[in-house]
């Protein structure tokens, strides 16, 4: 199969996945025995007002009709109007997404840097102190609850040591420029270094907390992959050619050992996007995760379905890019 045909096939599959996600999310939110109108109006509202609002929002229509309307809307990039905020869901998503993607990217950078470095060193210095450290680091990373870790770090670095700020994307009395919505990028574009350093100081803790688990996974996979590669014949050949240890490790082993890590990075990125809810709450981060969860608590259907679909889209897109890059790197994948 040619590369173009392969990409088209993957995109077609992605459309099917998106339709599946839309269908599942729609029916899950609509069949649960709860009343979104009641959730929005609260316990005081009399039944007449609840019924009137239900009619006004079209929630009294048969579920199949609601579903058809919903799918029609999605095709036109219209996720509907949020029951709670009365704003188009897409507008809300565009408002909150930059904060989430910025945090996810920062966490990813942290996770890849730390994970790869630790993985490589623990493979090279197998069973030495750095390997033990990496093991403990990884076990802690995958087993520590995000909520607990976040609060603990805040207590230490904000409250006791006074080194880092206590939450939010920037300080209250610093006004960063707004161009793309990505605060750090915007500060660089506008040359506002005060805002940049302020933003950077705010993202350190949440990026660490969010990226820790991914860093731990990457470190373990990197180590295993590296150990596997180091046993290969071509490494022995490289060594016997008299190449320096550095060249053998960086030029020959690392490049090959990184391939399985790319897969993990693609998958991790999705979990960083969807798993940001707790981190966003602890660090008062105005992101999409909190938007979706709060929408869920008041059964704001359009916001839940729209937000979930959007995250699923980004996730699929990230994996599509991973798949395509695989196909480019390794023609066997196209078969």
């Amino acid at each position, binding site marked *: 199969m040619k590369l173009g045909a392969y990409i088209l096939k993957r995109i077609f599959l992605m459309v099917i996945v998106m339709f599946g996600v839309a269908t599942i999310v729609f029916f899950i939110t609509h069949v649960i025995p709860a009343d979104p109108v009641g959730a929005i109006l609260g316990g005081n509202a009399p039944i007449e007002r609840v019924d009137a609002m239900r009619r006004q929002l079209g929630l009294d229509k048969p579920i199949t009709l609601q579903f058809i309307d919903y799918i029609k809307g999605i095709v036109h990039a219209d996720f509907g109007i949020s029951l709670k905020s009365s704003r188009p869901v897409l507008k809300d998503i565009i408002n909150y997404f930059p904060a989430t993607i910025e945090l996810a990217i920062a966490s990813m950078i942290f996770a890849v840097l730390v994970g790869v470095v630790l993985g490589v060193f623990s493979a090279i210095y197998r069973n030495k102190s750095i390997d033990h450290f990496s093991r403990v680091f990884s076990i802690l990373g995958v087993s520590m609850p995000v909520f607990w870790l976040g*609060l603990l770090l*805040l207590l230490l670095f904000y409250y006791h040591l006074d080194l*880092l700020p206590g*939450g939010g994307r920037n300080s209250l009395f610093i006004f960063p420029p707004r161009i793309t919505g990505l605060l750090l990028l915007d500060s660089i574009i506008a040359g506002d270094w005060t805002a940049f350093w302020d933003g950077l100081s705010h993202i350190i803790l949440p990026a660490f907390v969010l990226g820790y688990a991914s860093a731990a996974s990457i470190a373990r996979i990197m180590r295993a992959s590296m150990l596997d590669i180091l046993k290969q014949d071509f490494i022995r050949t490289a060594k016997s050619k008299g190449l320096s240890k550095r060249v053998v490790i960086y030029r020959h082993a690392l490049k090959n050992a990184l391939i399985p890590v790319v897969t993990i990075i693609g998958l991790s990125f999705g979990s960083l996007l969807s798993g940001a809810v707790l981190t966003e709450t602890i660090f008062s981060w105005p992101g999409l995760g*909190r938007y979706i969860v709060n929408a869920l608590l008041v059964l704001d259907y359009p916001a839940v379905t729209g937000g979930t679909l959007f995250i699923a889209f980004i996730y699929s897109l990230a994996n599509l890019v991973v798949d395509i890059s695989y196909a480019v790197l390794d023609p066997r994948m196209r078969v």
Partner: protein
Amino acid sequence: MFKKMYLWTILIVLLLSLVCITNATTPKDALVIGANTEIFITNDPGVSFEVLPNAIVQNIYAKLVSVVVKDKQFITIPGLAESWEVAPDGKTWTFHLRKGLVFADGDPLKADAVVYSFQRVLKLQKSPCWLFSDVLGLTEESITAPDDYTVKIVTNGAPSNVVLTMVGNTLSGVLNPRIVKEHEIDGDMGQAWLTDHSAGAGPYVLEEWDRKIKVVLKANENYWKGAPEIKTVILQDIPEPTDQLLLLKKGDIDIAWDLTAEQANSLKGSTDVSIVTTPGQSDEYVGMNAGWGPFKDVRVRQAVKYAIDYNAIIDKVMTGFAINNQQFLPVGYFGYVENNPYYQDIEKAKALMAEAGYADGFDVELVTNTTERRETEAVVIQENLAKIGIRATINLMQASQMYAKFREQGLQMIVAGWGVDYPDADALANPFANHRVKQLAWRCAWLDDYAADLTEAAAKEINEDRRFQMYQDLTNYWHIYGPFAMMYQPIEFWGVRNEVKNYDKAAEGYSVHFDLTEVGK
């Protein structure tokens, strides 16, 4: 290789130390409130109906009168209107506006703006609209301006306290019609624009609402009472109470809005922070379905009321942040007189159960929603009921699911709360005693016509002494026959930095009254 790694480590540490910040206390002319702003939907007085946003909107839009607390009672004082009178028919109200009033942008504020704002509430038909249309019986035609300084409204004859508290309510905030019309989109009467902008004459102007980040208010230098001392009020979004506590202790916020009772208690003895309290505008109750099995018998309902350990709930579950108030009228309301006839008396409760033919008890489903406090309350109630043989099974539900069933009289027993819509006895008597309005009494299938008649008569009674007595009679009757065991009236509390002055005055009577102009530093 290690050398390089060390170099990198040093570089990262240096970079980190560059971005490290030191925290300062908030500026002297600014008040920073840390709160979970998730509940914010709009800042439009004609649409907003949630407690926290209403408290902020109250400070953006001036009203004809203000509802304040004096000697622990809600009273009405002049606002934009310097005086008012009601015609002998008890229906026609005339408000006389002050001369020389202006909006924040300097536009003159005259009677036409009041008429426009009131009619706008009725046209929009949003959540608070029923207070005008149903409670006061207002129509667009019943609101007029005979001249620039007179506003006339014709009500359905509601008592003066009801009319005045409504005219002092958030929905009665006066908007600048010129600005609103300029920002109208598709006939929305400026609704979309007013979500995050303001056009009022209150002490503050809404400068910015950056969703999930902050709400910023700036002092209105044209405010008719004079510009407030605090020039900037920032409501910073901090969803997690533990974070609010840390930021408060460090001085990065002046007020923590959502502390838990444990956190508030942990601040006792602090030299930097105080706890400010005020009686909450809500009731916590146990509701029994008077149309279901054993609860049909008034003696069983009374037995339940005698089985509950009110003190344990107030002291242990609420850790003291609650008032023992067993009637539907909150402290400070018209008609309120301390009246708590129930206390835990297991023997008496058992005797009542035996008298009703339930000496061996019965099984019941006790429903509440999934919040930590309600769950704990339900467990205490379950344990209390077990002592008189009632075997309660707790069923936790999402609030919306619980209320959906409750609205259909589908619950046997419930632990829940009721927030006040406006500060008058009628706002509580109706839901708790009048089944015809299809609120709590109806949901508990307590279809008592005597209580309903008395509630309706009290709502229409314009002689204050007679009206007062009617609420006493209603309360006493309801205590005996009603399907509710009132657990307590919650106490609202905030963590406040000691640099902040008079916050207790600003928040006294929250959420009915919340006046940031009282605050200083």
